[in-house]
């Protein structure tokens, strides 16, 4: 019995291959985009975890100094007192073509570094510890460095994250030029008993408990949350397609189901069969979606890796390796999605009386009479989003507001469109106009899900587009201010730097040293720069808040400038006092924008920096010179000191490189934006196609009353175009609100800076035109079908409708 009943139910799909394809493709798209984002996130997170484990940062407490560097004598004190600590010296250095993080560790005491050495059986331990030493790096890092000479032989190992070069601490001291310095001390897990308290023997050092998560993962959480939000949005948009198709399939099979029940098949058995069918379809779509997800993820991952490296310095491998959990979760999402989309249909089936005749309108969802309920639900969702922002702090609150706003706006769309179309219909002139607008309004319930999907996609497009464009505009202007010097020079060593500086002074308007030390404020790493008193800074530095005598106070050493991230995180604004080192405290006299940097930063007068921070390298300069002479001076400088091209950069090269990093940052967002819009357009197409059988009874009488099929087809095109355009117009305020939340709430929490919001009306016009075009393209096929429908098919409406 069950087999026969199942075959009867399945036979529907044989007669409706278009619906079957729509269902499979819709669910596959939803699963695909979701799985793509998950694959990218998994890959990135596993890279962070690998980095953290391999470098021993995750499970060990660390000791750091407020001044940035721990003197060697503190290490000696600790060891003499019996404390088992392992020193780490870390710094950025240019090797070959790339800047890398050089990490020097004591191979004898570091908990995991010795495994690198053990992986190289031909390598004698003494080679690592004695000059020239050895460098260890991931093969991808080695390849990226290029064929140039490195300060020590470099060995390939898979056990390190990309972008990190590991070496013995003595070798690191030599390469970084920071002899006798320690960045941090790892407090090993096995310690003798009865040790003196750290606060007694090294009171100037700060003990940080083992990190539950790495700094990298904390910093990149917002990025991944953005991706996840996009993935979820795409999934939801895909479900809109599936919901409509499954609902229609259930509704159109009510006749078959009624017959099966009349023939003695219990409703519970029919429901189980439908559930099995649904799960089978979900498995097929899920598998298809996983293939699509893999392809999307593989194509986007290189850009994501570049973004994470460029923006956060986070190491992510460019290749995609998938775990079984990814397959399981992808198929699980497909099944959950199918259940969500089909749940309403199954529920309706359960409630309908046995003899209820098959209808065509019920599956459509909300009817026009339900619009007030939808409007109320929408308002409640928006209210709950606002409550979420108030209840939860930080990113969670921001995303709660976003979720409430987007869901609420989607629910509000059909009632708003119904209202607008009602007003237009009331004012319409001419009989065709009256019918057109009234008919448009009556078809709203059937198209509402697709239009909601389109609204979400368009608003996201406007919101994210506004954010990115605002960011780009601000960032470009900021670069112009920040990169005021015409040339930027990096010397390989301090002594060469001194020679370069002496050579440059008579040949340029000014040589501005770029010198810094590392410190900690509120447990966060902060780089403290010392700058010379020069008009370049006074005239160009991008201050967003400052006291009137800011430059004078900075120059006399009584004031400090801090970046926006630090100001917001520590709530330090002009007038507040802050402690940079135990011996150095100053008043905040200004706050400057510092885009693209996740960490805090401070600026003091150069003499102040040199007085309070030891071993500050002096290898970088900004050079002021008339622009016309910059290129010649750069060439002379390279030739005189035998410097590589990358050691002397002109302003435009740095700007181009910075903008390239910036563009990479949003390339993934832009790609997901386009994909989501594509899925939403597909939702309209599938809705129009599934509505096709319902449209004939509406348009056939108009044809019979004397309107040509050509005219009706044109009106069908216009109908879809008008709905898409109206939705786009309503998406503009929602998108702007979304942009505001992204800029004023999410960005501030995620990155620590707030951007001014710029509006781009031409972009909205373009998007409205694109949405209208998408509506027209989606309606082209149904319109063509209407135009070529033979009269005999149209006449069936009058003779066989039941």
């Amino acid at each position: 019995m069950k087999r026969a009943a199942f075959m009867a139910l399945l036979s529907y799909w044989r007669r409706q291959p278009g619906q079957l394809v729509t269902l499979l493709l819709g669910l596959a798209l939803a699963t695909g985009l979701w799985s793509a984002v998950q694959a990218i996130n998994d890959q990135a997170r596993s890279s962070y975890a690998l980095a953290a484990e391999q470098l021993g940062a995750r499970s060990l407490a660390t000791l750091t100094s407020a001044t940035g560097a721990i003197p060697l004598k503190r290490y000696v004190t600790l060891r003499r007192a019996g404390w088992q600590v392992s020193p780490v010296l870390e710094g950025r250095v240019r090797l070959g073509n790339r800047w890398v993080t050089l990490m020097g560790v004591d191979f004898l005491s570091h908990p995991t570094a010795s495994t690198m050495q053990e992986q190289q059986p031909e390598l004698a331990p003494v080679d690592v510890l004695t000059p020239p030493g050895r460098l260890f790096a991931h093969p991808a890092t080695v390849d990226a460095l290029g064929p140039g000479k490195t300060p020590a032989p470099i060995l390939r190992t898979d056990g390190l994250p990309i972008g990190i070069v590991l070496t013995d601490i003595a070798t690191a001291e030599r390469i970084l030029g920071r002899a006798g310095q320690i960045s941090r001390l790892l407090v090993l897990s096995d310690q003798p008993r009865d040790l003196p308290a750290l606060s007694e023997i090294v009171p100037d050092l700060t003990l940080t408990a083992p990190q539950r998560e790495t700094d990298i993962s904390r910093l990149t959480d917002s990025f991944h949350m953005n991706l996840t939000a996009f993935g979820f949005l795409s999934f939801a948009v895909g479900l809109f397609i599936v919901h409509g198709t499954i609902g229609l399939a259930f509704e159109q099979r009510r006749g078959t189901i009624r017959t099966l029940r009349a023939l003695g098949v219990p409703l519970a058995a029919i429901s189980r069969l439908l559930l099995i069918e649904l799960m089978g379809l979900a498995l097929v779509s899920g598998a298809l979606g996983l293939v699509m997800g893999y392809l999307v993820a593989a194509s986007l991952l290189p850009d994501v890796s570049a973004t994470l490296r460029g923006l956060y310095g986070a190491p992510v491998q460019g290749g995609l390796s998938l775990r079984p959990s990814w397959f399981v979760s992808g198929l699980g999402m497909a099944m959950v999605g199918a259940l969500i989309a089909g749940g309403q249909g199954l529920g309706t089936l359960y409630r309908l009386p046995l003899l209820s005749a098959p209808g065509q309108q019920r599956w459509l969802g909300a009817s026009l009479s339900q619009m007030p309920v939808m409007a109320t639900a929408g308002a409640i969702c928006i209210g709950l989003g606002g409550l979420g922002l108030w209840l939860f702090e930080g990113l969670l609150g921001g995303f709660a507001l976003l979720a409430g706003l987007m869901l609420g706006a989607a629910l509000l769309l059909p009632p708003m469109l119904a209202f607008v179309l009602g007003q237009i219909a009331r004012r319409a002139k001419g009989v065709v106009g009256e019918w057109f607008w009234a008919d448009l309004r009556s078809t709203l319930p059937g198209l509402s899900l697709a239009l909601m999907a389109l609204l979400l996609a368009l608003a996201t497009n406007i919101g994210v587009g506004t954010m990115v464009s605002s960011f780009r505009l601000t960032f470009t202007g900021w670069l112009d201010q920040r990169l005021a010097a015409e040339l930027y020079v990096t010397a390989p060593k301090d002594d060469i730097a001194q020679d370069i500086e002496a050579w440059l002074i008579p040949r340029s308007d000014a040589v501005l040293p770029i010198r810094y030390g590392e410190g900690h404020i509120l447990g966060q790493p902060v780089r403290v720069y010392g700058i010379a008193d020069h008009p370049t800074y006074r005239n160009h530095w991008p201050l967003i808040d400052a006291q009137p005598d800011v430059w004078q106070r900075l120059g006399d050493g009584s004031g400090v400038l801090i970046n926006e991230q630090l100001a917001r995180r520590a709530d330090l604004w002009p007038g507040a006092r802050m402690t940079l080192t135990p011996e150095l405290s100053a008043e905040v006299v200004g706050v400057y924008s510092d885009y693209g940097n996740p960490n805090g930063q401070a600026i003091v007068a150069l003499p102040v920096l040199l007085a309070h921070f030891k071993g500050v390298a002096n290898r970088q300069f900004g050079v002021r010179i008339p622009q016309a002479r910059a290129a010649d001076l750069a060439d002379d400088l390279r030739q005189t000191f035998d410097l590589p091209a990358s050691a002397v950069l002109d302003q435009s090269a740095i700007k181009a490189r910075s903008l390239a990093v910036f563009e990479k940052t949003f390339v993934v967002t832009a790609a997901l934006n386009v994909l989501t819009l594509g899925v939403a357009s597909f939702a309209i197409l599938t809705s129009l196609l599934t509505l096709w059988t319902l449209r004939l009874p509406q348009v056939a009488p108009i044809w019979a009353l004397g309107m040509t099929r050509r005219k009706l087809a044109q009106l069908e095109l216009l109908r879809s175009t008008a709905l898409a355009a109206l939705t786009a117009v309503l998406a503009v305020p929602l998108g702007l609100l979304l942009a505001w939340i992204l800029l004023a709430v999410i960005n501030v929490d995620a990155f620590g800076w707030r951007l001014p919001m710029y509006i781009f009306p031409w972009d909205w016009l373009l998007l409205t035109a694109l949405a209208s075009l998408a509506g027209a393209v989606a309606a082209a096929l149904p319109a063509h079908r209407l135009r070529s429908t033979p009269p005999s098919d149209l006449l069936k409406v009058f003779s066989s409708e039941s």
Partner: protein
Amino acid sequence: MLLRVQDVTKKYPGTGVTRPVLDGVSLQLNAGETLALTGESGSGKSTLLHLAGALDSFDSGEILLDGKALSRLDDTGRAALRRGPVALVFQQFNLISSLTVAQNLSFHARLGERFDPDWIARLTERLGLSEFVARYPEQLSGGQQQRVAIGRALALRPRLLLADEPTGNLDEIASDRVLDLMLELVGAAGTALFLVTHSTEIAARLDRHLHLRAGRIA
């Protein structure tokens, strides 16, 4: 002569049926005359009505409507006929669900640019629809909906009204009432009526009665 059907044959391609639905059918209808066409299910009576209303094309023969040969008209010409001298009433009423009763009543007349508010007001009153004009079709009973459909057709002041089982979906009382009204109004307007029905009783109330059997006039 308002309508002349001459030796018309019609087949539906792709149905697997080799016998034509209409096989050499001829008839004629004068202005103001009422004609009933009866026949069993599948005899081709609705098809003949559709051909007379320029809704479908035929394979051979000719139909002359108001002096125009339908075989020579393209889609636009046929549509123009349906907005002018010909109006139709269907068994399923086929009102426009998104428009009110008032809008439905005037729809066809406005589409054919023959809108006469006084005439429509009189029709509305005579059809007993005055109190329902602001309602939508779904808010009316079957009899009321069919009265709106008749009003919509007659509002055009057509020369020929084609009605396909106009009372087929109504109970006996409603059916009688609708038919009385239709005959009264076409008589008053001088409109010819070509009505397809299963019922010999209804057919007997019209001026002439033809019977169709297996695609031929019996």
